[in-house]
């Protein structure tokens, strides 16, 4: 595997999230949903462990509201 140069972060933009819950199904390790179906990050700082990076990307790529942002910092 490639050397990890930056930590990957996942953020749910709750203004955009409409609760499709696709992300929760694809990456329950990273995302949970509240009583209204709105998604939020399980890790408060949004950090994504290396082995879950692919899942994080899948969650982002399947969100119909484009509400999940993946960044490297």
């Amino acid at each position: 595997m490639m050397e990890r140069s930056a930590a990957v972060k996942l953020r749910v933009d709750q203004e955009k999230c409409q609760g499709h819950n696709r992300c929760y199904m694809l990456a329950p390790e990273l995302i949970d949903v509240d009583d209204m179906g709105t998604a939020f990050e399980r890790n408060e700082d949004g950090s994504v462990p290396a082995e879950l990076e692919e899942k994080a990307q899948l969650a982002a790529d399947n969100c119909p509201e484009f509400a999940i942002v993946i960044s490297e910092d």
Partner: protein
Amino acid sequence: MADTQPVNDWATDFDILDEGYIADPFTVWEDLRGRCPIAHTERRESAFLPTKYDDVQAFSKMVPELSSADPLVIAAPEAIQQTEHFKKYGANSPPISSDPPEQVWTRRLLLPHFTPKAVEPHRQYTEELCNELIDGFIETGEADAAGQYAQQIPPRLIAKMLGVDESMTDDFTYWVRAVLELGLADPELRMKYRDVIRQFFRDTVAERRDNPGDDLISHFLAATDPDGNPIDPEIVIGMCNLQLVAGIDTTWSSIGSALWHLGSNPSDRQRLAADESLYPTALEEFLRFYSPVTMARVVTENVDYNDVSMCPGDKVIMNFPGANHDPDAFENPHEFQIDRKVNRHVAFGAGIHRCAGSNLARMEMDVAIKTWMKRIPEFEVSKPDEVTWAGGQVRGPRYLPVTF
């Protein structure tokens, strides 16, 4: 122009109730995307039909310029619009027929009952139900997978959630079809069953007020509106109405389409039978490819969008199924890919009206298809020419003969 004349040009005169379109809307959208991605018609009323993903997404965010006040693809008949009830309450199926702020608070009453965790307890019941239905025909080696199976599942779950007797399910199914399918071309039928459903819930709500339980109707009755007052009983009735109208034809169509697909495509059927881990992507691909639901908006102020000018009173058809086949949004959209990884489909809509029942619908699809495949892994559509499809508002097979 007569509403039922054959279509001359789909770009300027589309007809979503056209028989050929119901059987195969895909080629129509493909043609339109290339030359006129937002089509128009004057049939029945002035209406626009977007065929591209980005346009459908953009329209779903145009609130309140595009209102949900009359969300069916064919406007409520004049006779309904003239009633005192309609003048006061409108289409009255909150939240689907509401705009904010009413849409927001009525939707919030529903959401907690439909999260992934909230629907999970209904899984076991759904499994038992599916097995019982299969027990009823498995010995005969043939079935109508639409009428004897797919159609039977959603109304029972809705009945259970509303705390209504299960024996009502055949009535529910017919009432909803009378409004959403048969009623689109038959205003009198639509009116009649609109009233039948409402009267049923008027009686049920009155009875439930005296005998509350742990069901959706009792929860609605116990809740308050934003002013802290008990909710107007007509709004509760409207919300119950929506549970039937939104939850039955839709889910039944998605289960039926999935079985149609598996019964017509042996290689996909064998792959799914051999590998349960394909279910999550398979379900989303069924939803994308066979998206059952088309909705509508009504324009409330002048909107200029790309080359199109829309005026107050025009209808906009929310063509979620067409969006899901747009090559700019999906790789090889006309191919059914059972393991499609990136699938940002909008079968459950987009924006503030995202299907509130989507997690329940997914659970029902998951259980219905898994249970069928476990018990009847080998089957085929036996008389493809006899399969009938409904469409326009909700698309799916209505008669689906299979042998096994």
